């Protein structure tokens, strides 16, 4: 009797950008998707973090030329140019670029982008709503570096805040600040302290590891001044980190993107081109309580959850907070806008240059009426 | 037990340095209680090594040590100090950035906590008792070498040592200071302190020691009672051959003036005026000595002459041309060379022999910015050959040469360029008899060949032996000039201490 050799598993390589795993948001979410694909499709997934940008192209060529991998998943916009210069040379190698696009449609390349504005605008409404319930009038964001995905967050977040103001007849101060780093929580904390000093009631963390410092700052502010303030997380559900002060997180399902790309290779059909994921595709959004709980469970099983917490407790605390501080009218606003977006009645513009980004922001800052908000839109209008 | 126990007994000491140099071979060394014991030998004979072993600073490769009849194994000087052994090193062991008092506290604190006021009181008491004058609050780096030497001795006395090791303590002292030191040592001997005394000056050894051990190339040649030997015999034991002591000096026939210094004013590193209006003239075929206690502006004077140090006021004329403020390399090129008093200044110890041979004469070995190494090597092997520098290879780092050989290389380099005027500062400092003799006769030979030598020295023997004329410097001013016959050693000593005698200025 002869034993059949085991069916050869498809090999997939996930290539991170220079930050690599461990940012608790973007890159870790990508790996989550890869792990899920590994289980579901029984594929062999390996990963690599290149030592520097200069290494990206040579490494990409090396792996493309080896022909060993069914798919190379490239995480992050730093891969754009290396991929653009490599993809045509290896027509038999499939590539997936996550969160960026080369702008070229190729049969062997799929680019998966997110419409971050669609999530950020909902977060903006929630933030403005919470700020006012907390008795304040200022919302803020602690952002990492001035890069295209964050432009979209900036536009969406500001859009949401203005939308809230114009609908509710309030005026909300909007503070946005780039810390210049994705890795320094101490700077994140100090920026957030500064933002809270300026009256911010809600701080949106958009800076990877840096905004972990925002969470600490918010907690400390509450402890020392007795004044309740909130932080909001992004990408993964981050409520479990401090459910008393993080009532809500934005979702950016990098995991879905990676999973989708792998699925296209393993199960088909593969089709090159550009895919964007938004609210409709559930590629972005607000984490619901189930999501919050799932992440808390993950944290709990890895021993990360604070000893006094359980996943259920996290979920309960968060839903309590959401009930108390995000009023039904605010939820209505959120859902209305969400419906418009999902139905395709509203499509956000994606700025292509820094100037365009800046002009959209200044127009939004100056907006006096709902129509003024249309500068941020590609299609449709708000009313 | 009792008085018959020797103070120090070292048996079968062998020392191999990590790079394979065998510094001592099977040395037996005994010092009786209460005696002054001389330790003599050529440069590199192993005297310092033996004492470093006794002091626990380095470990012997083999051998045993007894102190007052007790077998000891020191892990470091701190152990030795606790057993009553104290060593004053050849190179000073004071922390230059600290004040004298801080150094004293440091030294005392190895025997327990030292309180500032206690140490000061004790130091002042010792100073009073034996007439040492050391400014306790001055920073060591600001003191002259002579005062530093006194600070060293004060430090040693403070340690209440029962066995005191002095490694070439007199080489920087003036005759008066040497005499004071000798008196001091006698008093210490009376107090029952055992002293080990290393020197290259046989006269001193004869004068102060009771017994002498002579080392040659790491072995004990002989142990003698001092009264039984003459200086000549000692020299012969050390070197292994006859040494002629009287260097023959032909009568001077001074020629044309080569170097003239006119009303020179120079500041020291701290910005204080160190040379105050010095003038002199140096002629061909003559040796002019600048005599003085170290630290009286000699260094500033010569550095200003060759252009290393800015001149405040005044003029330097060399061969009829003003060279005031000229860059040193240009001065050297014109034939005025300078042998500094420290080998660490005249040589780059981490460079090899060839590298060092072109240090002051780099321009001559350049062709369009490129160094002509083959020529440099030729030049350096010439120096090595002509001046008998003992060295394995031209690529050997100079750090690995013994002091005597370093000095030969340094002097050789400066002399080989066939200069007109040689400024030599302490050219024999720390050298053994043979090497000293070699350098001194070399200087005389140069003079006889028609060159001029400006000798800066604190060693009166040397000054009397070599100079045609001498100038005594005190606090930056020339106190007196004259021919050697014009002065007695006593007068000179007074002048160096700033006491003017009439008619000589």
């Amino acid at each position, binding site marked *: 009797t002869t034993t059949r050799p085991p069916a050869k598993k498809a090999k997939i390589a996930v290539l991170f950008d220079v930050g690599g795993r461990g940012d608790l948001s973007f890159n870790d979410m990508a790996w989550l998707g890869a792990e899920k694909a590994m289980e579901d499709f029984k594929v062999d997934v390996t990963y690599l973090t290149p030592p520097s940008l200069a290494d990206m192209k040579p490494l990409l060529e090396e792996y493309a030329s080896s022909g060993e991998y069914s798919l190379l998943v490239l995480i992050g916009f730093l891969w754009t140019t290396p991929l653009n210069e490599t993809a045509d040379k290896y027509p038999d190698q499939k590539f997936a670029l996550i969160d960026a696009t080369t702008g070229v449609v190729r049969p062997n390349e799929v680019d998966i982008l997110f419409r971050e504005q669609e999530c950020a605008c909902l977060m903006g409404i929630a933030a403005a709503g919470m700020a006012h319930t907390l008795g304040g009038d200022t919302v803020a964001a602690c952002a990492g570096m001035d890069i295209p995905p964050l432009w979209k967050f900036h536009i969406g977040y500001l859009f949401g805040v203005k939308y809230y103001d114009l609908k509710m007849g309030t005026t909300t101060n909007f503070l946005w600040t780039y810390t210049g780093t994705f890795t320094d929580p101490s700077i994140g904390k100090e920026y957030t302290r500064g933002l809270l000093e300026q009256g911010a009631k809600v701080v949106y963390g958009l800076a990877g590891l840096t905004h972990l410092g925002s969470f600490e700052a918010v907690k400390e502010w509450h402890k020392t001044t007795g004044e309740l303030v909130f932080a909001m997380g992004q990408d993964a559900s981050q409520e479990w980190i401090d459910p008393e002060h993080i009532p809500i997180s934005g979702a950016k399902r990098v995991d879905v993107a990676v999973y989708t790309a792998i699925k296209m290779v393993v199960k088909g059909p593969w089709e090159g081109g550009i895919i964007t994921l938004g609210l409709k595709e559930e590629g972005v959004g607000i984490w619901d309580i189930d999501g919050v709980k799932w992440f808390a469970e993950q944290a709990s099983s890895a021993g990360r959850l604070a000893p006094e917490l359980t996943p259920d407790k996290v979920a309960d605390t968060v839903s309590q907070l959401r009930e108390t501080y995000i009023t039904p009218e605010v939820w209505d606003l959120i859902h209305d806008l969400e419906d418009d977006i999902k139905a395709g009645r509203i499509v956000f513009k994606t700025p292509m240059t820094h100037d365009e980004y800046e002009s959209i922001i200044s127009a939004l800052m100056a907006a006096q009426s709902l129509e003024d908000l249309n500068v941020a839109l590609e299609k449709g209008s708000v009313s | 037990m009792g008085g018959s126990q020797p103070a120090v007994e070292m048996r079968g000491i062998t020392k191999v340095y990590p790079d394979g140099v065998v510094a001592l071979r099977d040395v037996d060394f005994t010092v009786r209680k209460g005696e002054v014991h001389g330790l003599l030998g050529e440069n590199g004979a192993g005297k310092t090594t033996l004492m470093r072993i006794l002091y626990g600073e380095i470990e012997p490769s083999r051998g045993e040590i007894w102190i007052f009849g007790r077998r000891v194994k020191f892990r470091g000087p701190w152990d030795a100090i606790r057993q009553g052994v104290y060593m004053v090193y050849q190179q000073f062991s004071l922390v230059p950035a*600290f004040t004298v008092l801080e150094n004293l506290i440091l030294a005392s604190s190895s025997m327990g906590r030292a309180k500032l006021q206690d140490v000061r009181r004790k130091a002042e008491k010792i100073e009073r008792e034996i007439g040492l004058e050391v400014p306790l609050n001055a920073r060591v780096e600001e003191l002259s070498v002579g005062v530093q030497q006194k600070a060293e001795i004060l430090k040693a006395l403070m340690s209440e040592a029962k066995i005191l090791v002095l490694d070439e303590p007199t080489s920087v002292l003036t005759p008066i200071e040497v005499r004071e030191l000798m008196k001091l040592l006698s008093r210490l001997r009376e107090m029952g302190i055992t002293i080990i005394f290393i020197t290259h000056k046989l006269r001193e050894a004869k004068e102060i020691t009771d017994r002498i051990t002579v080392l040659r190339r790491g072995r004990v040649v002989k142990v003698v009672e001092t009264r039984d030997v003459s200086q000549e015999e000692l020299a012969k034991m050390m070197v292994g051959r006859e040494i002629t002591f009287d260097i023959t000096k032909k009568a001077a026939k001074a020629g044309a003036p080569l170097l003239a210094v006119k009303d020179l004013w120079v500041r020291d590193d701290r910005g204080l005026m160190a040379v105050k209006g010095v003038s002199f003239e140096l002629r061909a075929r003559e040796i002019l000595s600048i005599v003085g206690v170290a630290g009286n502006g000699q260094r500033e004077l010569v550095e200003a002459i060759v252009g290393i140090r800015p001149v405040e006021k005044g003029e330097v004329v060399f061969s009829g041309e003003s060279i005031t403020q000229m860059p040193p390399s240009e001065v050297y090129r014109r034939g005025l060379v300078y042998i500094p008093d420290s080998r660490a200044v005249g040589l780059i110890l981490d460079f090899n022999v060839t590298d060092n041979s072109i240090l002051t004469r780099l321009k001559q070995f350049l062709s369009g910015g490129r160094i002509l190494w083959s020529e440099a090597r030729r030049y350096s092997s010439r120096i090595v050959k002509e001046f008998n520098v003992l060295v394995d290879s031209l690529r050997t780092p100079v750090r690995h040469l013994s002091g005597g050989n370093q000095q030969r290389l340094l002097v050789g380099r400066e002399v080989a360029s066939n200069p007109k005027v040689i400024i030599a500062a302490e050219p024999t400092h720390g050298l053994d008899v043979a090497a000293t003799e070699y350098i001194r006769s070399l200087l005389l030979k140069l003079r006889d060949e028609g060159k001029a030598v400006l000798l800066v020295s604190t060693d009166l023997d040397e000054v009397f032996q070599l100079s045609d004329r001498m100038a005594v410097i005190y606090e930056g001013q020339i106190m007196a000039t004259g021919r050697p016959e014009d002065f007695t050693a006593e007068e000179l000593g007074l002048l160096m201490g700033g006491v003017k005698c009439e008619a000589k200025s």
Partner: protein
Amino acid sequence: MELSSIVSLFILALSPMVPLLLGSVGEIIIEKAGVVNIGIEGVFLLSALTSAMVSFFTGSLPLAIFVGVITGLGVGAIFAVIGVYLRGDQIVAGVGINLLAYGIGVIALFKTWNVFGASPPVATIPKWVVAGHGVSPMAPISVIIAVLAWFFLFRTNTGLKLRACGEEPRAAEAMGVNVMRMRLLATMLGSSLMGLAGAYLSIDWVGQFTRQITAGRGFIALANVAFSGWNPITAIVGAFIFGFFEALAIYLSISYAQPTLGYVFRTIPYIGTLLVVMIFRSRGRAPAALAKPYIKE
């Protein structure tokens, strides 16, 4: 700028001051003995890690601080054995320790919590409230430590011996100081202050351990050592000035609407420090025997 903002800036300057101050005082002690430990970052990182772990698993802050300090001490001991007894090149060893520490930090994260970036939040040192701001008790403590370090270095016998090892080790040894042991002890003492700084980072300032929690602050501490002219008291000034500029940069970038300008404001602490150094030249000089291994034979 209003008065209250200025007061705020002064208070906000304290958080970045603490690790700089402790780090540079630690380094001053080490360098005064003649050893240069360029691995400040590495010590910060490892101590931040161990104290975060202790804080997370036991909740005991005193124990967490203690373990952070001990970690610094241990790393210092290893470094000193390499750099002092084995005469390794201190700079290379320091660079190596930085690399090593980063790797160990991340490995520990994923072995302990199955993450690569950050530990979960841990219990932190409670803050005092001063003029409406949270102030860590570590701020005054670090200043007191700096003053004590000054006293130790410049007013005690042991301090004198330690400085002698950095100035003229040969002379120190001749005067009965065990130079190697003194250097070992100084490195351990200094590194344990760095360990305290590391503990501050994770269980006081940031509230968790992250893989790049030090964010180059070890190097700034190194700069502060030179800035201070090797004097712990001046180091307080240097660390505070830097912290102040950092707070000012944050204040300005929040106050100005144009977000990209934030980058330009981030240069304030560095340019400001440089200007301060250029205007007030420091009189202190490096210990004469700094980074030179003491070789006896």
